[in-house]
C-alpha cells in the first residue's frame, strides 16, 4: 500500500508537468491555430538555459536560493524572447495558411531547436536537477512522505490552469484572445489587435513550456531528445481537453501521469509509458468526434 501511495505521488507530479506542457499547447492552438509540435523542444531549450545558469555560471558561494532564482528567471526570460521571436519571424507570415502547413512548420522549428541544443550542450545525459522547493523538505500525509517539489508542481499546474482560465474569461485582453480564437477575421473587424494577441499567446505558451521543463529536471535523466519528446505526453493531455478546455487538459495531464506511472510497478521499461500515451491518444480520438478539433483552426 505504501508503494502504491508513493507511485501515486510520483504519477501526480509527472501529471502536473504534462498538464503544464499541455496548457501551453492548448493556449497557442486556441489563439493562433498552430498545433505546436516544437513545444517540447522550446521547453527543452529554455530548461537548458536555466540549467546553464544554475550549474555553469552561478558562483559556488552564492546561496542556493539565489542561483535557483537567477536560473529560473534566465530560463523564463529566454523562453519569452524565443516565443516572441518565433511569432515575429515565422508564424506571423503564415497566419492564413492551413493548420497542417503550420504544424509542419513547427516540425522545422523542432528539428532546428533540437540540433542547436545538442550542438551547444552535446548529447550527454544529465541528472542535475533544479529544485524549486528545498529538496529535503517533506510533508507527511497519512504516513506517506511527500516531497515539497511535488506539491509545487501540482499547485502550479492547478494554479496556472485556473489563472489562465480566469485571465481568458474576465480580462479584456483575455476576451480579445477568445475572440481571435473564434474568428480572427471578425475579431480584427471589431478592432481586436490580432497580431498582439498572437504574440502574447506565443510568449505565454513558451513561458509555460519552460516552466514544465524546469520542473521535470528532478524526475528524469534528461538530454536534449528526452525533453523534446515530452511533446507526445503533452499532446495526449491536450487531446483529452479537446485542444480547447484548460481544466480538462489539466485533468487529462494528471490522469495520463498516473496511467504512465502505475505500470512501472510491474514493467521495468523506459519505453512502455510511450505506449500508454499512444493508447490514450487513440482512445480519446475514438471517443471524441475528431472533426470537433478542427473548429478552432479555420
Amino acid at each position, binding site marked *: 500500500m505504501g508503494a502504491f501511495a508513493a507511485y501515486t505521488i510520483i504519477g501526480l507530479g509527472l501529471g502536473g508537468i504534462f498538464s503544464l506542457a499541455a496548457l501551453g499547447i492548448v493556449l497557442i492552438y486556441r489563439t493562433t491555430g498552430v498545433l505546436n509540435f516544437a513545444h517540447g523542444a522550446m521547453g527543452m531549450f529554455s530548461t537548458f538555459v536555466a540549467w546553464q545558469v544554475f550549474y555553469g555560471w552561478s558562483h559556488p558561494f552564492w546561496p542556493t536560493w539565489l542561483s535557483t532564482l537567477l536560473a529560473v528567471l534566465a530560463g523564463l526570460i529566454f523562453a519569452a524572447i524565443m516565443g516572441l521571436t518565433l511569432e515575429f519571424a515565422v508564424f506571423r507570415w503564415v497566419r492564413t495558411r492551413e493548420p497542417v502547413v503550420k504544424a509542419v512548420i513547427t516540425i*522545422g522549428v523542432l528539428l532546428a531547436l533540437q540540433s542547436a541544443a545538442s550542438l551547444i550542450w552535446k548529447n550527454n545525459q544529465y541528472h542535475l536537477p533544479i529544485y524549486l522547493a528545498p529538496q529535503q523538505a517533506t510533508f507527511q500525509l497519512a504516513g506517506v512522505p511527500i516531497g515539497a517539489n511535488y506539491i509545487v508542481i501540482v499547485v502550479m499546474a492547478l494554479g496556472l490552469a485556473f489563472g489562465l482560465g480566469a485571465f481568458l474569461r474576465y480580462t479584456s485582453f483575455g476576451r480579445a484572445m477568445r475572440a481571435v480564437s473564434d474568428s480572427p477575421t471578425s475579431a480584427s473587424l471589431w478592432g481586436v489587435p490580432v497580431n498582439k494577441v498572437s504574440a502574447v499567446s506565443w510568449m505565454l505558451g513558451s513561458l509555460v513550456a519552460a516552466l514544465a521543463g524546469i520542473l521535470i529536471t528532478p524526475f528524469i535523466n534528461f538530454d536534449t531528445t528526452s525533453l523534446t519528446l515530452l511533446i507526445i505526453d503533452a499532446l495526449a493531455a491536450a487531446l483529452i481537453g479537446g485542444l480547447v478546455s484548460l481544466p480538462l487538459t489539466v485533468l487529462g495531464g494528471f490522469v495520463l501521469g498516473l496511467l504512465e506511472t502505475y505500470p512501472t510497478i510491474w514493467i521495468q521499461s523506459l519505453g512502455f509509458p510511450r505506449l500508454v500515451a499512444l493508447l490514450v491518444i487513440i482512445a480519446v480520438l475514438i471517443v471524441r468526434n475528431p472533426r470537433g478539433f478542427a473548429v478552432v483552426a479555420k
Partner: protein
Amino acid sequence: MFRVLAALVAFTVLARIPVGFDVGFKFDAALAVIWAFGLLSLVLLTGYVGQISLCQATFAGVGAYTAGLMVAGFHADYLVAVVAGVAAAFVLGVIVGIPALRLRGITLAIVTLGIALVFDRYVFQDHAFEWFTGGTAGWRVDQATMFGLQMDSSKHLMAAYVVLLALFCVVALLMVNLHDSGAGRRLRAIRDSELAAATMGVNLTRYKLLAFGMSAAIAGLGGSFYPLVAGSVSPQPFWLFTSLQFAAIAVLMGVRYVPAAALGGVFMAVVPDVLTRFGHGTFMGRAYDISYDWFQIAVGVLLIVQLIALPDGVWGDLRARALHAWSAAGALGGRKVKVA
C-alpha cells in the same frame, strides 16, 4: 515511352557515378537510395492522397529488422528477406491506416508521431522485443546472398547499390504512371475532398488503407536493404527524428513530385557526410568543426523558409520556372505551347 527512356537513362548514369569514389561515398550512394524510398513513400501518401504521416522511418525500420531477422535468424536468401520486410511494412501500414480512416490533418499527425515514438523508444529498444530486434547488438548481416550471388556489405556494396537503384527506378516509374491512371485519379480525388470523392463512388476505406499499405511497403522496401548496405541493424537510423526529417525533406523538396524524392534522398545521405568529412579545419585562426547537428538545423530552417516562400517545394518551384521559360521561349518563336 519517354518516361521509360528517362528512367533508363537515369539508371545508367546514376549507377556509374559512385564507381570512382571511396567506400564511404559508395555507402552514401546506397543510403541515398534507401532514404529516397522513404521520401517516395511520402510522395504517394502525402503528395497523391493528402494524408500526413510522421512515422515513415518506422515502416523502413520494420522492413530493416524483418530483413535482418530473416537473414541472421533464419539464414534466408536476401530476396526472401526483402519480400518479408516489404510484407511486414505493408501490414503495419494497413494497421496504421485504420485510425486514418477517421482522422485527417493534425490529428493524424499526432497519432503517427505517437506510433513513431512507440517504435523508437519501445519496440526497437525494449528487451521484450529482442526476438524481433536481435537485442542491443542488433542483427549482423555479413554473409548474405541474393539470386545466389554474394552480396555482403563490405566488398559488394556496389552490387547492392545497383540492385537498389534499379528497384527505385522501377518503383518511381510506377508512381509516375499511377499519377495519371484511374487509381491515381481516385487517390487524388481523396486528397482534394474526401466527401466529394466518396460521393463520386470512390471506396474511401479501400483506397486509404491501400495507400497507407503501399506507402509503408515502399518505405519498407528501402529499409529492408539497410542491413545489406550497413552490415547490421540498429534503432538509431529509424528513430523518431528520421521520421521527422523524412516529412521535412519531402515537403522541402516538393511532396507532389517523384523526382523530388530522389533529390531529397541524395540531400539526406550525402550532405551530412560531406559536412562532417570536410567541415573541419581552421578559418581565420579559429578551429571549427561542423557536426551532423548543423545538417538538421539547416533542414529545419530551410523547411520554414520554403513553406513561407515556395509552398510547392524546391523541385516544384524549379519545374514551374522551367515550364514558364519554355512557354516564354515558345511565345517568342510564335508557337503556342501548352503548359501542363
